[in-house]
C-alpha cells in the first residue's frame, strides 16, 4: 500500500507538473521562438542538435532552449532549415549520412511545440546539402536542393529535384565542368538558389573541403527541361586572391514588388561584392553582370544572405558583422533604407518577428561556417578568414537597429549555431 501511495504521489506529481506547467508554457508566444540548428563542438564534448529557443528579449526565458533533439551519431551537423509551402520542415545537412532531412514537429498535451525527430532522406548519393526552394517545372511543383558536393569529386555539385509530396528524387541535375566540354554550361559546388518564371539560378561557391576548388559563376537552369543552359561569371576584385565564390542569390522579381525589374542579385563570399544580372523576361535573356556593391570600397567582407520583408531587403555581411538594409521596391538597385544593423562578426541568417509588446524585431545569427575556435584547439576550426565565429544571436529593434539583447550559444550551451529560422514558418517574406 505504501508503494501504491508512493506511486500515486509520483503519478499525481507528474500529472500536476505535466498538466499544470505545460499549459502555462503553451501560452508562451510562439511568434518569438526560433528554430535553431546547433553544432556540437568537439573540444567541449557536445552534440549537434535541433532546438527551439526563445528570442523575445521581453521574455524571462530569453535565450532558453525549450525543446531539443540531439544527433550524437552524426559527425557533421544539419545545416539549413526550410519550411515547405505546406508547412513541412526540412533541413539540409553536412554529414554524408544525412544530406537532407525532414524534421518532425508536433505538440504536447499542453500545446507546447515539440521537435519529434527527423528522417534522413534518400538523396541518391548527393552530399552536403545547402539551400532548398520549391518551384514549378511544367506546372508541377518540386523541391529543389543544392548539394555543394554533389555525388563527389573535385568538380562535383548537383541540384536535386525531389517530389514535393513523397520526397523521392525525381532527377539529379549534374553537369561537371570536366565533362561537359569547353564553353558548355556546368554546375559546380552549387549553394544559393532562386527562380523566376521558368529560369532558375544557382551559384558556384566552393568545394566542401574549402580547398580543392572555388567557383566564380552562376548557372542558369531551364525549368522546362531541368538542364543547365548558361553560366554567368561574377568576378572582379579579388581581395583574398581567390575566385569570387558567389554564395547566396536572389532573383529579384515583380511578385516581390510590382515595381521591381527582374534581375539576379548575387553575393560573392570571397569577392565581397553584390552583383546584378538584369533579365529580360520577354526574350528570356540575361544582360551584362555588374557590381552594384563593393565590399572593398565599403569596408565590408563576406556578404552572405538575402532576406526580404514586405518593404525592405536585408543583406548580411559577415565582416565586420552588419546587416545592410535596402528599399525593396527599388530592386534590383540597392537603395539604402536606413543605417546598418550592427550585429557581430559572422552575421549570417536572420528572422523577423514581434516582441510581446508588439515591437518589431530582427534576430541575427552571427556565425559563418559555425566551426570551432582555434583558441580552443578545436580541430574543426578553419581560420581562412579570422573571427567569423561569434556564436551569438543578437536581437535588434527592426526600426532603429538598436541591439536589445544577445545570447551567446557557445557560452551558454557549449555549442555553435549553424542556422536560425522562425518556429512559426518563415520569419521573412522573401529569401530565394
Amino acid at each position, binding site marked *: 500500500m505504501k508503494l501504491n501511495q508512493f506511486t*500515486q504521489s509520483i*503519478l*499525481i506529481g*507528474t*500529472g*500536476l507538473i*505535466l*498538466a*499544470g506547467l*505545460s*499549459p*502555462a508554457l*503553451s*501560452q508562451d508566444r*510562439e511568434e518569438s521562438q526560433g528554430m535553431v540548428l546547433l553544432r556540437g563542438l568537439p573540444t567541449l564534448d557536445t552534440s549537434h542538435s535541433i532546438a527551439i529557443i526563445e528570442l523575445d528579449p521581453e521574455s524571462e526565458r530569453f535565450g532558453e532552449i525549450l525543446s531539443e533533439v540531439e544527433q550524437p551519431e552524426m559527425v557533421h551537423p544539419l545545416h539549413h532549415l526550410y519550411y515547405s509551402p*505546406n*508547412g*513541412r520542415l526540412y533541413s539540409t545537412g553536412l554529414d554524408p549520412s544525412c544530406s537532407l532531412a*525532414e524534421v518532425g*514537429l*508536433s*505538440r*504536447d*498535451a*499542453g*500545446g507546447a*511545440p515539440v521537435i*519529434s525527430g527527423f528522417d534522413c532522406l534518400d538523396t541518391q548519393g548527393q552530399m552536403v546539402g545547402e539551400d532548398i526552394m520549391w518551384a514549378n517545372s511544367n506546372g508541377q511543383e518540386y523541391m529543389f536542393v543544392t548539394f555543394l558536393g554533389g555525388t563527389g569529386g573535385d568538380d562535383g555539385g548537383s541540384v536535386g529535384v525531389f517530389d*514535393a*509530396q*513523397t*520526397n523521392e528524387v525525381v532527377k539529379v541535375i549534374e553537369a561537371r565542368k570536366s565533362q561537359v566540354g569547353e564553353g558548355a554550361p556546368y554546375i559546380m559546388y552549387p549553394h544559393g538558389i532562386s527562380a523566376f518564371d521558368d529560369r532558375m539560378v544557382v551559384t558556384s561557391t566552393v568545394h566542401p573541403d574549402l580547398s580543392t576548388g572555388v567557383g566564380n559563376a552562376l548557372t542558369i537552369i531551364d525549368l522546362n527541361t531541368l538542364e543547365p543552359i548558361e553560366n554567368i561569371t561574377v568576378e572582379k576584385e579579388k581581395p583574398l586572391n581567390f575566385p569570387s565564390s558567389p554564395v547566396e542569390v536572389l532573383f529579384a522579381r515583380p511578385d516581390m514588388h510590382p515595381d521591381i525589374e527582374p534581375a539576379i542579385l548575387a553575393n560573392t563570399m570571397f569577392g565581397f561584392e553584390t552583383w546584378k544580372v538584369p533579365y529580360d523576361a520577354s526574350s528570356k535573356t540575361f544582360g551584362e553582370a555588374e557590381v552594384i556593391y563593393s565590399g572593398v570600397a565599403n569596408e565590408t567582407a563576406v556578404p552572405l544572405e538575402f532576406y526580404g520583408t514586405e518593404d525592405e531587403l536585408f543583406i548580411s555581411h559577415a565582416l565586420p558583422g552588419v546587416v545592410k538594409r535596402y528599399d525593396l521596391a527599388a530592386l534590383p538597385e540597392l537603395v539604402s533604407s536606413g543605417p546598418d544593423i550592427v550585429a557581430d562578426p559572422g552575421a549570417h541568417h536572420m528572422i523577423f518577428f514581434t516582441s510581446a509588446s508588439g515591437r518589431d524585431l530582427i534576430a541575427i545569427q552571427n556565425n559563418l561556417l559555425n566551426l570551432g575556435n582555434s583558441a580552443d584547439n578545436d580541430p574543426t576550426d578553419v581560420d581562412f578568414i579570422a573571427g567569423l565565429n561569434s556564436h551569438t544571436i543578437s536581437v535588434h529593434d527592426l526600426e532603429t537597429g538598436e541591439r536589445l539583447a544577445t545570447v551567446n550559444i557557445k557560452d551558454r550551451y557549449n555549442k555553435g549555431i549553424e542556422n536560425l529560422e522562425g518556429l512559426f514558418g518563415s520569419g521573412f517574406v522573401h529569401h530565394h
Partner: protein
Amino acid sequence: MRWVLLILAAAGLAVAGWMNWDRTRHPVATPIADFSAPFVFGRFAVPPENPLTEEAFALGRHLFYDPILSGNNQVSCATCHVQALAFTDGRAKSPSLSGGELDFSAMSLANLLWGQERFFWDGRATSLEEQALIPIQHPDEMGQDIDALMAELEASGTYRRMFRQAYGAVTPENTAKALATFMRMLISSESKYDKYLRGEARLTAQEEHGRKLFMAHPDTKVSLRGGNCIDCHSQFLTSGFRDALDGFSNNGLDPDDTLPDGLMAVTGNPAHKGFFKVPTLRNIAVTAPYMHDGRFETLEDVMAHYNDGIVVSDTLSPLILEADNAPEAAKGTVGLRMTPEEIQAIIAFLHTLTDEAFLTNPKFSDPFEGGS
C-alpha cells in the same frame, strides 16, 4: 471453522479499508498517454485548472453519451451530436423537448482544442466548460435541473468513482470540465487533406484546382480566380479563432428586415447583427444541412449561395461583398460568379476534409455500446 471466520473477518476488514481509502483518496491525474497533435494546427492552450487527463476524458465520454444528463433521461449530448455525422445530427434544426425545433442547427464537434474563445453559433459561451452546462439546463434541449443531476450522478457508484478519479467530488463544475475535456480530445487529423499536408497523399487535379480556388481571393486585375473561402475560413482545419470575436461574420443569408440578431444578441453591438460563427470545414461533407439554421441541404446549394445568391445587408462582410470573379457580368446580383467546373472543384476539395478515422474512432464512440 474459527480459521474460516478469521479469514472472512480479515477479508471483510480489508475490503472495508479499501473502500474507505478509495472514497477518500485524491484524484489520479494521469496525463493523456502518447498525446500528440499536429504542429500545423497551431498553438492551443488548455485551461490550467482543467488539464487533459485520461480520467477526465473517460468521465467526459461517459457523460456525453449518457441520457442521465437530461431531465427525462432520454436525451444525451450524443442525441444531437452523432459521431458518424461529425457530431452533428443531420437535421436543419434539432427537435426540442417541447415538440418544436431548436433555434439553431447542431454544430459539428472537432478540433475544439484550438483557439476558440466563443462557442455556439451566436458565441454566447466563452469557454467549453461554460458551454457544456448550457444545453443540459436549457428547457428545450435537455431540460435538466442541475441539482437533480448531481443527485443522480452521486447515486451512481460508477460515476462517484469516475469523478473521484478525475477530479474528486461530483459537482456541476467537474461535470462541465469532464465534458469539455472529452470535446477537446475530439481531434481530427487523418483526412485526405491532412495526409496531403504530411506528404502521405496526393490530391487529384480537380481537388488541387479546388484547393487553389479555396485559398484565393479573386483579383481580376491579375486574372486570379478565387473562391474566397479562406477569407473567412482561415481556421478551416480546426474550429477556432483565438481573438474573441474573430470568426463571426454575416455571410449574406438574409436582408436587413429579417436579419437575425446573431452575435449582437450577446454583445449588444448593432455592428454584429446577423453575425454567426464561421464553422470548421473539417468533415463538412457529412454535416449537411448547412448554415446556422440548416437552410441549405447540399454543398451545391451552399456554393450556389456564394456564387450568385448573396443578400446584401448593412453588416454583410465586405470580403464577401467585393469578391467577384466576373464583375462585368454582374446584373444586380452579388456573388463569386465562378464556373460550374470551379464550383465542383471546390466541392471536391471540401470532400478531402472528411476524416473517416475520426468518424469511426472507437475512442470517441458510445461507451455504453461495448466501447472501452
